[in-house]
């Protein structure tokens, strides 16, 4: 290893990056665009669910029940004076997600202390929405009962205390995940085309007849992209803070150090692909396929790993984002430190070293 040679490669890579405005644009704009796009689009927060009410009772009690649904930010009452047979077409046109039918004897039934039934019709095409409406309606009914029946003493009431994300904002969950997705995508994409580009232009051959060895080439190519990836990480976290008010409860320095490890993994992955792929197109496609899908589907980015079928859980252990998600969510939301996270950091480092070794070995083999 000769420092002079590595420095020459580093300088050259920086010139490539800053002279090619298209790749520079990708590096700067893509994370910003992605965080805005994903940050606002991927949300499991329920808002503005529309519903219809057929109130045959028209009593103070029935209006009280309806108010139970409307006095929050989740539901909007859209239709009141409709006939029963109109409900189905409203559902089919997706005008409403829920309908409430209050029978004419509602108040009398309540007063006489009988079990009173109110019909709730729910559009559960989206099962998450269906479950949410169902749960929320039960809660409304429970509150209604409590208000009505002050004297019944034996009702069990849960007093929940919600940790780490008390507002239950899904942005707090997704935006740290986006850091994992974007860093992985950008860093591996950039490095995967850097070597294949030199294969295509023939300059790689020219470098290889010089005394430079594969390790020097790989190191010289990784360092410029580590700095870029790190810059990207900072941009994403600033945006997460400003746009989505995601809390950072843990240490920023720890985020920085562990992000560097993750960036190293992403770059090694890109190098591994570029050592195998023959053209830039193949390298880009392979990188996209191998990073985006597993990261979104298998890392716990949206779906919890614990609820996956067992074979998929094993696969998720090989996905770098699985570990980084635990790390970044842990630091940002829970404020935990290295004492809890060192295992995940070690797993990440292991994956990175493994992939870099494959890249260097493959690189040597290609020459023969």
């Amino acid at each position: 290893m000769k420092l002079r040679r590595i420095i020459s490669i580093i300088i050259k890579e920086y010139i490539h990056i800053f002279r090619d405005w298209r790749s520079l644009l990708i590096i700067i704009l893509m994370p910003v665009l992605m965080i805005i796009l994903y940050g606002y689009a991927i949300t499991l927060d329920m808002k503005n669910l529309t519903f219809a009410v057929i109130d045959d009772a028209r009593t103070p009690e029935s209006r009280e029940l309806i108010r139970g649904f409307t006095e929050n930010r989740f539901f909007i009452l859209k239709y009141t004076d409709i006939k029963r047979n109109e409900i189905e077409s409203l559902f089919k046109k997706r005008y409403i997600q829920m309908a409430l039918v209050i029978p004419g004897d509602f108040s009398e039934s309540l007063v006489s202390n009988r079990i009173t039934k109110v019909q709730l019709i729910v559009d559960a095409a989206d099962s998450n929405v269906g479950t949410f409406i169902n749960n929320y309606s039960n809660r409304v009914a429970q509150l209604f009962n409590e208000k009505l029946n002050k004297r019944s003493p034996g009702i069990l009431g849960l007093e929940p205390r919600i940790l780490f994300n008390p507002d239950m904002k899904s942005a707090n969950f997704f935006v740290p995940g986006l850091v994992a997705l974007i860093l992985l995508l950008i860093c591996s994409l950039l490095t995967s085309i850097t070597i294949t580009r030199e294969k295509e232009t023939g300059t790689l051959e020219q470098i290889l007849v010089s005394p430079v060895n594969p390790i020097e080439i790989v190191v010289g190519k990784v360092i410029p992209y580590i700095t870029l990836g790190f810059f990207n990480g900072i941009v994403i976290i600033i945006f997460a803070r400003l746009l989505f008010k995601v809390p950072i409860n843990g240490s920023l320095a720890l985020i920085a150090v562990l992000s560097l490890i993750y960036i190293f993994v992403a770059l090694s992955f890109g190098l591994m692909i570029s050592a195998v792929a023959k053209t830039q197109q193949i390298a880009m496609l392979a990188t996209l396929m191998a990073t985006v899908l597993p990261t979104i589907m298998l890392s716990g980015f949206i779906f919890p790993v614990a609820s996956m079928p067992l074979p998929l859980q094993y696969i998720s252990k090989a996905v770098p984002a699985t570990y980084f998600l635990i790390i970044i969510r842990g630091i940002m939301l829970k404020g935990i430190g290295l004492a809890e996270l060192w295992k995940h950091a070690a797993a990440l480092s292991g994956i990175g070293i493994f992939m870099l070794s494959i890249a260097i070995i493959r690189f040597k083999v290609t020459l023969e």
Partner: protein
Amino acid sequence: METEIAVSASKLSRHFGAFKAVDEISFDVKKGEIFGFLGANGAGKTTAIKMLCGLLKPTAGEATVAGFSIRTGTAMIKKNIGYMSQKFSLYEDLTVKENIEFYGGIYGLSREEIANKTRLLISELNLEKMQNSLTRALPLGWKQRLALSASLLHDPPIIFLDEPTGGVDPISRRNFWRIIYEIANRGKTVFVTTHYMDEAEYCNRVSIMHKGKIIELGTPTGLKQKYNKTTMQDIFIHIIGHN
């Protein structure tokens, strides 16, 4: 190097599966010689040159370059050779100066050496006005000369040129050969492949490759006498026709 031989191959072969790209070629190149490798496209010239430069491992046989084995001494070989491939292989998005600085750097030249060489080269090539423009903007003839200069930055005793004049106009080709002669006059060994038969006339000795084998080797004058022809072109067509 005590020996007078710069490059020596003995039964050197390279197979790709069942295909014998290079099939037991043997030859010696003397120091200071301009040695031509002639052959049609696909005759195995590039594969042979890549093995000699350490870019490909031989399937069988042995060769030495600057006294080092291509099997065990590639690291030393790389310090002693310059290589210019048939593809233009400088960075088009780097300026002339940046290219020279980069290649100087990966050959481990010091900062002063690089600065001196850059100045010298740029004035030799009359590129003062172009030194800060992108290499992309240069005419092809200039690019080839720049690529050649870049491969000579570390002052190697042996230079491999793989079809250096491909796609260049006749005048640039003649200029290019003038430089090759200058290099040879400085005592360097030049190993050049080409499929232009007129260029063969400029070589001290030529070998003609066909289907992975060397089927003829000698001085241009010697070959002309042997086959009783007046140009290398005629000789080439005659030999290939009989194989």
